[in-house]
């Protein structure tokens, strides 16, 4: 039996090899290169002045008020948008599941925003909230410039995110809903549980793994938010996110060392968030898809 086992194993590795090599080339290599670059003082304009500075770039970023403010902004946008998306997504998922008439129209309609390119969605909402060209002020009878104040700018950014990605959340949760066995719900009904009780005592607990996966995906996505903020405020009104700070440093200032340090720190944050979900909420990625 053993020789066959090892031959199979070899075959398995062989079959995996192209994917592994591709992954190493396009993800592991750039990541390690960024880590390497972050240890240098390196300006793309003056490659001759490149020299090793150890962890000085990290010290510069971590000592900077800009980094901590942008981290706080990012966390606010992440928590704000993901929380609203979860609640709305659940509602939409229930609607999509229970819709009796026009099921396909409802599902397609709900998914439209997700099909729109983020930049386009961000532009549309920017124009919608603009005091001269937008309809929002007219609709609400207001006169303010939404993107000119910090909190209203956050509101516009978060609502754009919510508008755009709630369908994604709803879709994932809908998949979770279909995993709840119908007979269990019927049995509970026979036992006298009301609709609310059935939802909180049976549906939600059974959906827990799916909800956690959906939350993990969305949290990681939301944390790396770039396009919406870039288009709507470009980080003004103190709405800069960590990705925007990285972009400014790397792409505008061409400071590869400092910018790579920012990128690595963003990566560390992402790992921490994932670890929090997997360890903290005991999320098991390998079984959640089967809904236990």
């Amino acid at each position, binding site marked *: 039996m053993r020789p066959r086992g090892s031959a199979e194993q070899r075959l398995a590795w062989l079959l995996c090899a192209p994917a592994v090599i591709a992954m190493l080339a396009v993800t592991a290599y750039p990541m390690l290169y960024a880590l390497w670059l972050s240890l240098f003082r390196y300006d793309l304009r003056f490659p001759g002045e490149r020299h090793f500075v150890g962890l000085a770039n990290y010290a510069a970023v971590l000592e900077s008020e800009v980094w901590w403010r942008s981290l706080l902004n990012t966390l606010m946008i992440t928590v704000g948008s993901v929380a609203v998306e979860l609640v709305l997504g659940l509602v939409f998922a229930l609607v999509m599941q229970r819709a009796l008439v026009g099921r396909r129209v409802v599902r397609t309609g709900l998914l439209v925003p997700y099909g729109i390119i983020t930049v386009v969605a961000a532009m549309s909402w920017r124009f919608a909230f603009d005091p001269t060209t937008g309809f929002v002020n007219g609709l609400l009878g207001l006169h303010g410039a939404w993107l*000119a104040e910090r909190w209203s700018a956050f509101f516009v950014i978060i609502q754009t995110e919510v508008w755009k990605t709630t369908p994604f959340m709803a879709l994932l949760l809908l998949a979770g809903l279909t995993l709840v066995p119908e007979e269990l719900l019927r049995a509970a009904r026979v036992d006298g549980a009301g609709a609310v009780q059935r939802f909180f005592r049976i549906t939600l607990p059974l959906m827990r793994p799916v909800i956690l996966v959906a939350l993990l995906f969305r949290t990681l996505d939301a944390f790396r938010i770039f396009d919406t903020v870039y288009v709507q405020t470009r980080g003004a*009104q103190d709405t800069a996110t960590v990705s925007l700070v990285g972009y400014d440093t790397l792409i505008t*200032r061409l400071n590869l060392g400092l910018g790579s340090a920012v990128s690595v720190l963003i990566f560390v944050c992402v790992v921490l968030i994932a670890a929090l979900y997997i360890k903290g909420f005991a999320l098991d990625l390998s079984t959640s898809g089967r809904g236990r």
Partner: protein
Amino acid sequence: MGRLSLSGVLVCALAVLASCGEQSTRQPRLHWYVFDEQSGAFQEAARRCSVQSQGRYEIVLAPLPTDADQQREQLVRRLAADDPDIAIIGMDVIWTAELAAAGWILPWEGEAARQARVGRLASAVQSASYDGRLWAAPFTTNTQLLWYRTDRVNKPPATWDEMIATAEGLGKVGTIEAQGERYEGLTVFFVSLLASAGGQVLSDDGRSVSLAPEPTHRALEIMHRLATSSVADPGLATAREDQGRLAFEQGSPSFMLNYTYVWPSAHADAPAVAAHMGWARWPAVIPGRPSRVTLGGINLGIGAYTRHPKLAFEAALCLASAPNQRLAAERGGLPPTLRALYDEPQIRRVFPFAEVLRETLRDAVQRPQTPLYADVSLAISHTLHPMRAIDPDRDVARLRAAVGRALRSEGLL
């Protein structure tokens, strides 16, 4: 090494797909990287020069985004990767020092430099110079004027204080349109105010911070006063040139600080407003001392890695010659850098304000000429945004510190 070989493979693949193969058989193609000019004036200039060369070269436009920041981002990434495709660059005046110091463009020397300088406005030539050398041929220039409603204001205001007071007297239609978003336009606005107050951002050698307390304080005072007055546009903190133009064309505002493109635009989009549109020199900060307004425009530089440097210099001179400047002015509304053109009747038809424009350009101020300009500009616009939150007493020191950090490439911005 991994990166080299991988990118090498990619370059080869792209080269096969693109036109590299044609090079040997056809005439050299010179790619002109320049912002996407909508009227077709650049396209026509490229065609003319290609024809004039009698088959020695062909200029091919490579349009860049209209936003100057994005143009720069695309160009510097290519130049840092030694892209030989870039022959001629339509350089925004603020890139000269950066591209020159990085060795990404070739200096103009000898006869070519002489031809590129002759008859040009001194401020335009200065914008293409760095470290005592010429790095580009001045092509088009640009600067802001004060636009106002002749049906509401009898005489254009001479100073900022006068303008704000007049505007406040007009009530609801007194709005002044300016650029207040956190971007290059805010830096431009500050530099114009500072220079008009007699100050400068950097020392003459560009290596240390100048920002003398008195003029800086004065400039910040005006920004703060404008932003907190009733005549500021409610959207000032997110306003760029085009928001100001659109608002002015809607008819309500009475004043606007903007580039000359608003003139043809108003005639096309809002003839009723255009009929009452007057122009004047940018208001002064100190009474009796003419304003000094920030210079813009496009100069033609030669990419350091081009395969055909000699032809590229020749082609750039052709593109920047009088007939093509006339074309860019008449069709694209871009003010020429050749002094003599401002006296020609057909140019005066396009720019009825040619006299004020030429005077403004003569006294124009350069933005700081340092390789670290992008950092310095970010430092200025980030520190001074939003304008309504400026506290002149506190922010002079903050601004000095931020610009100093930018010059030393320190920390995040």
